[in-house]
């Protein structure tokens, strides 16, 4: 009777180890979802919003004068009171292919020197690949001294290949004042 019992115990231990490994694998899989999520977003052409935070190499093309696209600008703050942040123009009429510049204004009301980071987002999401920014205050963290107000430029080109059915693009920035995270970026 002892012999088979020992065998059962061994088998139990083996299966337990295998299941524990499976649990560890799932734990790792949870973290693997993080890079996978970015890849999936990029592949589906949907939310590759990360490209918006990088400078584009795109050069101005011949402007497509036959087409006018409305670009709207939105400025957001994660919480009220410690910053002032707004676009100078709320919208522009642009021709695809041409280089444009617009400006945002930010003022530090936190009462101390700080670093802030603007995070861009665009709607509709699929436009991300057709919106090239050659210069943007969102590419790097912005240092602000106490009470400082600054004009922040954005230069962009709307790609001529922009799908025909789109005539309106919304570019939004959220201005985060979180020195810990921004510093480590």
């Amino acid at each position, binding site marked *: 009777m002892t012999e088979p019992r020992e065998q059962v115990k061994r088998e*139990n231990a083996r299966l337990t180890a295998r*299941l524990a490994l499976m649990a560890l694998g799932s734990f790792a*899989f*949870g973290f693997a979802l*993080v890079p996978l999520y970015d890849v999936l977003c990029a592949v589906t052409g949907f939310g590759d919003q990360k490209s918006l935070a990088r400078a584009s190499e795109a050069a101005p093309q011949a402007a497509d004068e036959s087409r006018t696209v409305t670009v709207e600008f939105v400025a957001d703050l994660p919480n009220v009171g410690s910053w002032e942040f707004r676009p100078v123009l709320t919208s522009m009429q642009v021709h695809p292919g041409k280089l444009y510049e617009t400006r945002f204004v930010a003022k530090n009301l936190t009462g101390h020197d700080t670093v802030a980071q603007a995070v861009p987002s665009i709607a509709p999401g*699929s436009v991300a690949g057709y919106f090239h920014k050659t210069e943007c205050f969102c590419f790097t963290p912005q240092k602000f001294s106490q009470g400082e107000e600054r004009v922040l430029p954005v230069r962009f080109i709307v790609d001529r290949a922009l799908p025909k059915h789109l005539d309106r693009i919304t570019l939004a920035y959220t201005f985060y004042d*979180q020195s810990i*995270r921004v510093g*480590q970026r």
Partner: protein
Amino acid sequence: MATHAQAAAHDDHDHKPHGWRRWVFSTNHKDIGTMYLVFACTMFFVGGTMALVIRAELFQPGLQFVDPQFFNSMTAMHALVMIFGAIMPAWVGLANWMIPMQIGAPDMALPRLNNLSFWILPFAFTLLLGTLFVPGGAPAGGWTMYPPLALQGGDSFPMMIFAIHLMGASSILGAINVVVTIMNMRAPGMNLLKMPLFVWTWLITAYLLVAVMPVLAGAVTMLLTDHFFGTSFFAASGGGDPVMFQHIFWFFGHPEVYIMILPAFGVVSEIIPTFSRKPLFGYESMVYATAAIGFLSFIVWAHHMFTVGMPLAGQLFFMLATMLISVPTGVKIFNWCATMTRGSLSFEPPMLFALAFLFLFTIGGFSGLMLAIVPADFQYQDSYFVVAHFHYVLVPGSLFAIIGAVYYWLPKWVGRMYDQTLAKWHFWLSAIFVNVLFFPQHFLGLAGMPRRIPDYATQFADWNMVSSIGAFGFGFSQLLLPYIVIKCVKAGSKAADRPWDGAHGLEWELPSPAPFHSWETPPSAAIIARGAEH
């Protein structure tokens, strides 16, 4: 019957510890099962009290009893306590009690692990319920813990995270034990397709647990490091994305809802044949349907988050995959109905609960189908319609199945019969009030009342009042359950070994009350054949 005599005789000189040591150091599947069930029952009343705070506040428009922050704590804590404290431990308790008895094993495969997985729970819930007393109050951002809101929690935030880690560890250990027991401890001759459906559904549930609880642990760990260690998994300022949390969370969350319902399918598949006095219709299709539901649960998670903004192809995929689940579920409902067809039915308390399950769970399933339709979901999202939907599948679904299971197996556990008249009262009060409580919430949701709000526009007043009356009626009628169980343990009449004449399965071949160790000697082939008549 020689086996029984032997088992009983063995029981007599089996030295089980007495007093508190019997429970704290227990490695016995029945004692641990009992502790799980008592714990679940306690948490059920704690979570129920929180629900009554919510319904009391919503009895009339305006703010009457609690401030909004505390109200939001109640919604978040009610969910956490009911899911992780009541429903899941109740299922593990039933698994502990029944699986060894049903597969012809003496005990669970890993008794010490079993002790550990139970005793983690009181610590986890002390931590979770302790958040009610810390500065800033208990978590109030919903049980789904969406960032950035969840990250703004006060002192309660790390306590909640660690409580969830502990609950997760407990569930994973419990699940590992169930899988090892079922795979390795079956009596010779009890092959997989002879196992009772409760065992089958639990096997699949246990695999789901091992696969997804660690993902939840990962998600909450990311929240923790985002809050305290400056990482940016979900913080947009550092390049993270809060929507990603929802994906990871629901990758856990959707299988989790099947973790809570699959064992209920198992229980109902035991009860309906017994009281129809017919074998279960379509046993194998039941097994395959359960496996299919388990598989599909991994590829439908994003239907919880249609409104985050998703590519059309994604919405279509998740909508169609979700609707596909109704096929195996429909197979099950059909099989239960076919089992009853031309059976000689009788309506003892377990059967009543199983029938209510069948009817009301199907209603919950249908509202789920409505929510799966993307354009409709845009309208229903975050409304009381969603609340009505998941309470229909969880309360008359999982909870009724648990209560049915208790009334079904209680005579076997304690060797005494409970007061069936009182149990029928419990049933009718529950069945009526649960509908008074949740059905009006469908109307409220369709009319546009949002979830998790302590106040509402006056046009919602009437149905909220009805719903609150239902809530108090339902809550207080549940007090009958512990009363009936205690009365049965103390003064029930002696129960036969097979108190239900139509019952099949190895557990009924054991004497009542079941001996301390279930099958010291494995059951013979003849007993297994008799037990496995499905």
